[in-house]
């Protein structure tokens, strides 16, 4: 029943996710034959992904999205539906889509199992969405924009990203808010972590160099563009949002679990947060304390955090 409830706007299918496709099949098979409690148990006990699916802290970015019982929300690349369900508690209706059929089916299953009425589930990519202009009060893109270059319909990945953001701009009602959760290209965490292509340091490289390295090491071009603060500002402006209507927050430890949400443009707030970090002591603490004493130190350090929450009002 729930499988038929997914509105399929595309025919092709591609699976990716936090766990393997075999595990996803197993999950759906439990959903078909057993109770919701068994599904939850499998997620908790075998997949160890309970917080990714049923958690609430990962959706704390919603605290900064204006939502009420009249709000119509679009959750893009909704995965297994965590933000869809958390938004549905506060909003009037949530339209939720993912490119993967199986992931969309799981969202649909959960909607049925938990008897949530105010959610519509689609399997779709961005190109095949057929919503009218000015439909949504809020659009959620958590961990999505960096992957839009993979659409690969333009030579430059930024153009793919821009096209979708312009589409989202048109979908928003005047006064509506587009939320984006995304990495900062210049984050210091890339010194010891990996870029989206699985390689180290490519985020810092000029694009042409990142492209050469990715082609050599991975056999495909570099298309998962992330940006600096200024890069995102420019991108949002080009997508049709006025500069003064785009607000940036630093998310710590990251946009996927925003325990601390600090307004980027509020130097006082960033300094206070850095002061708290410095209190933890150690070499890192001492370094932060020294660097954040002058204003320009704070202004520099705020560009080095891992990720941003961006709220753009139409």
């Amino acid at each position: 029943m729930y499988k038929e409830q997914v509105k399929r706007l595309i025919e092709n299918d591609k699976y990716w996710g936090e766990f393997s496709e075999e595990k996803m099949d197993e999950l759906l098979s439990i959903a078909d034959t057993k109770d919701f409690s068994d599904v939850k148990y499998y997620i908790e006990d075998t997949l160890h992904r309970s917080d990714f699916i049923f958690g609430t802290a990962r959706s704390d970015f919603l605290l900064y999205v204006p939502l009420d019982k009249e709000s119509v929300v679009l959750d893009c690349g909704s995965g297994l539906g965590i933000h869809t369900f958390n938004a549905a508690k506060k909003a009037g209706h949530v339209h939720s889509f993912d490119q993967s059929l199986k992931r969309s089916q799981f969202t649909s299953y959960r909607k049925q199992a938990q008897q949530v009425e105010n959610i519509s589930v689609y399997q779709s990519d961005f190109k095949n969405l057929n919503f009218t202009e000015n439909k949504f009060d809020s659009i959620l893109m958590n961990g999505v924009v960096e992957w839009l270059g993979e659409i690969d319909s333009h030579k430059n990945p930024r153009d793919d990203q821009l096209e979708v953001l312009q589409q989202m701009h048109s979908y928003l009602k005047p006064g509506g808010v587009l939320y984006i959760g995304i990495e900062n290209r210049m984050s210091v965490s890339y010194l010891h972590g990996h870029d989206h292509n699985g390689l180290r340091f490519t985020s810092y490289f000029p694009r042409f160099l990142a492209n050469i390295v990715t082609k050599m090491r991975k056999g495909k071009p570099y298309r998962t563009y992330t940006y600096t603060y200024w890069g995102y500002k420019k991108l949002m402006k080009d997508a049709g949002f006025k500069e003064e209507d785009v607000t940036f927050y630093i998310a710590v430890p990251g946009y996927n679990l925003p325990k601390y949400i600090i307004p980027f443009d509020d130097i006082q707030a960033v300094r206070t947060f850095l002061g708290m970090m410095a209190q933890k002591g150690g070499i890192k603490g001492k370094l932060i304390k020294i660097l954040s004493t002058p204003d320009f130190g704070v202004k520099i350090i705020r560009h080095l955090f891992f990720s941003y929450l961006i709220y753009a009002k139409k």
Partner: protein
Amino acid sequence: MVEALQEILSKKYNLEKHKISFFKLHHSGDSPHAKILFFVFDSNKALGVIKIIRDFDYNDKLQHECDAQRKAFSSKIKNISVPKILDSGFVGKHFYTYESFVLGEVVGRKNALKYVDVVGDYQLHVEKKKKVSISQIHQTLSSIQIEDERCQDLLRELSKKQDDVFEGSNHGDLTFMNVLVKNKNIYFIDWENYGERTIWGLDFVHYFIRAHNNQEKDVLIGHFEKLKEKPMKTYEFSVLYLIDQLYDFLEKNNLAEYKKVCTEISNL
């Protein structure tokens, strides 16, 4: 929420004159009923903390904490401070509290033992109220069908105890994570479980057990006997240990029954 928070602050401060900032400081967990804290400050000076519950369906939890904290603040517990509630009310559907901010160090596991005496001293100053018979407590706790073996052992042991215990007000979840130290002042925070375990002495025993890493009862009694100033008799410690463990077991395994038992025991 941003606009709503600004609305709260505009009631308290002249936002045209003062540049007041705030940011999401923390959350107490992943559940819908976890507390979310927003840190409020002015030119690097901490002004306070706004607390809400993530899902407003659980507002009552924060309301309970707010009442408890006010009560604890006004009762002026000797040597112990409590963050002051500066304001409370509703913002949209969320109940909020705005309280003074204590930028202190959480005692934490590492320093937990250092503060056993402080907690003991606090316990000594909590008034013992009316007597409660252990047989009645045992009866209430054993009215719940629990098949767990350890739980049955605890109940059996409790049934052998004779003397009475006393009713008394308590924090309800006094652990090394809920004690803050700032300039040698000790603060008790997180009052959401206030009034749940209304037996005198349980705060100290609860803290003591966790500070000693949940060791076996006999080992704990050994540690307890080494204390210079004991807030209670060894016998009382031993009884309260059993009650604390039973409460813990119920809270973990059957929250609804736990709440019921708490109410019943507080009415004995």
